[in-house]
């Protein structure tokens, strides 16, 4: 596996976090290099969504340090994170259901209005289906279209790092395949991607590296091939 010596784009160092009395993450460390596509895999309730919510500052860590592009994320309020170059596609897509597809995309460009036209063309180039449906309320689109719209909305900010939270969740099996194909294309376009998934078999085909998160702790990490071959993952998660 290619190791780059320079500092990573995203560095998470010994971070713990939780909600009220419940601790969701224990001492988690993780790195993402520029241009890389990395997955955090693990079962439901492992703390994957919490990890992404930490990176976009929707919640604060109780301990530990998050660094993006060499600068600490600690002093930033959540609404300033996207301008730094981190776009987050949240769990369950969370589109604005009564706004049209295009208005949802416009919200994604809230902090970078000057590039709106140019990026809208890029997103429509990537998802021609969205262009057909652009005047339709997002809540009336199919699950797959909604996921495209949610990813498109995140890309509208022109992010350096794209966070994807369970993009395949709740979609029909045939749509799941097309969403993973899309993620692969986005990675191939040079976006840096950190993806969180329960669909371990599929996501390991798309990313280059992965971390296994279980009960709030990173229990294993390595290249996608290494993890796929690891006996404990085969047994517990891939059902082999």
């Amino acid at each position, binding site marked *: 596996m290619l190791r780059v010596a320079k500092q990573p784009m995203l560095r998470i160092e010994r971070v713990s976090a939780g909600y009220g009395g419940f601790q969701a993450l224990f001492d988690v460390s993780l790195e993402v290099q520029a241009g890389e596509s990395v997955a955090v895999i693990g079962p439901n309730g492992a703390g994957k969504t919490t990890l992404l919510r930490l990176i*976009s*500052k*929707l919640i604060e860590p109780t301990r530990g340090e998050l660094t993006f592009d060499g600068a600490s994320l600690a002093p930033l*309020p*959540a*609404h*300033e*994170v*996207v*301008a730094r170059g981190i*776009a*987050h596609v*949240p769990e369950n897509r*969370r589109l*604005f*259901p*009564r*706004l049209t597809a295009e*208005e949802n995309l*416009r*919200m*994604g*460009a*809230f*902090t970078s*209005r000057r590039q709106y036209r140019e990026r809208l063309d890029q997103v429509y180039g990537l998802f021609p289906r969205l262009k057909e449906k652009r005047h339709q309320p997002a809540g009336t689109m199919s699950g797959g279209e909604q996921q495209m719209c949610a990813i498109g*909305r995140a890309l509208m*900010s022109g992010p350096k790092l794209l966070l994807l939270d369970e993009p395949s969740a709740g979609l029909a099996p045939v749509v799941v395949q097309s969403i993973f194909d899309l993620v692969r294309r986005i990675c191939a376009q040079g976006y840096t991607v950190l993806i969180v998934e329960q669909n371990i078999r599929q996501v390991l085909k798309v990313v280059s590296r992965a971390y296994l998160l279980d009960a709030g702790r990173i229990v294993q990490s390595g290249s996608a091939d290494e993890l796929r071959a690891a006996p404990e993952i085969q047994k517990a998660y891939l059902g082999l």
Partner: protein
Amino acid sequence: MTEVFDIFLLEAVLNGLLLGGLLALLSLGLNLVFGVIDVVWICYAELIMCGMYAVYYLHVQYHWPLALAMLAAIAVVALLGLILHVFVIKPVLSAEPINQLLVTGGVLFFLQAAATLAFGIEFKNLGVTLPSVRLGEMSFSGARLIAFGVALAGMVALWIFLSRSYLGTAIRAISQDRQIMPLMGVDPARIFSLTSALGGGLAGLAACLLVLQYDIHPAIGLSFGPIVFLICVLGGLGNMLGGFIAAFVFAQFIAVGGFFFAIEWGYVIAFAFFIAVMFWRPRGILSR
């Protein structure tokens, strides 16, 4: 005989239309604030009362030109809306809805009492009389025609702002999913403040239109506040289109009901209609 009857009925219907435009504008600010922040400004009509006093004092006492006094009054009430949000609504934002109602209800009586203290209880008026417009045998108040035109223009301007601009889109988006707004780079607190100032500005605009037609006194809010609130509920609280339709329906009941019986009967019929609708559709004609 029948012809005369018809022409006066038409006059009543048209007057109802004019009243509907004004009521639609009145309901707009309240609906906007509720739709976005989920809090009912029970004291909305009292903000309008403050705006009416602002126009009166700037124009009559300080001799500002009327147009300038009105623009200043809009700015004053917009500021009041912002102050109301920051000092009264924000602290109770996560409290029970009943507490929010009570606290803005408290502001209602506070403003009424403070206005009595500051301005006295005597009726004041601008002393401006606009000529009425005659159309055949029908006659319409000039002030009402202006109010109708400005109200429509204000609503169209707001609609363009909400549907075309980034901030307007954010205002519509935040009522659909408040939690993820930061992921769009939007500070929800800033949108709430902006919406409150906008709601106040709409109350200020309404004040400018009302002051042309009615005398000002500290309790004037009570004469139209409940109607505006009921119109919002009738249309579906927080639904601006519903409020718009409800305003015209309600105004027709007042105008036409008043034509067939007596003015006072118009209100009785309109409120009876409201109660009936609440049985039929408790969440309003167009609930969100």
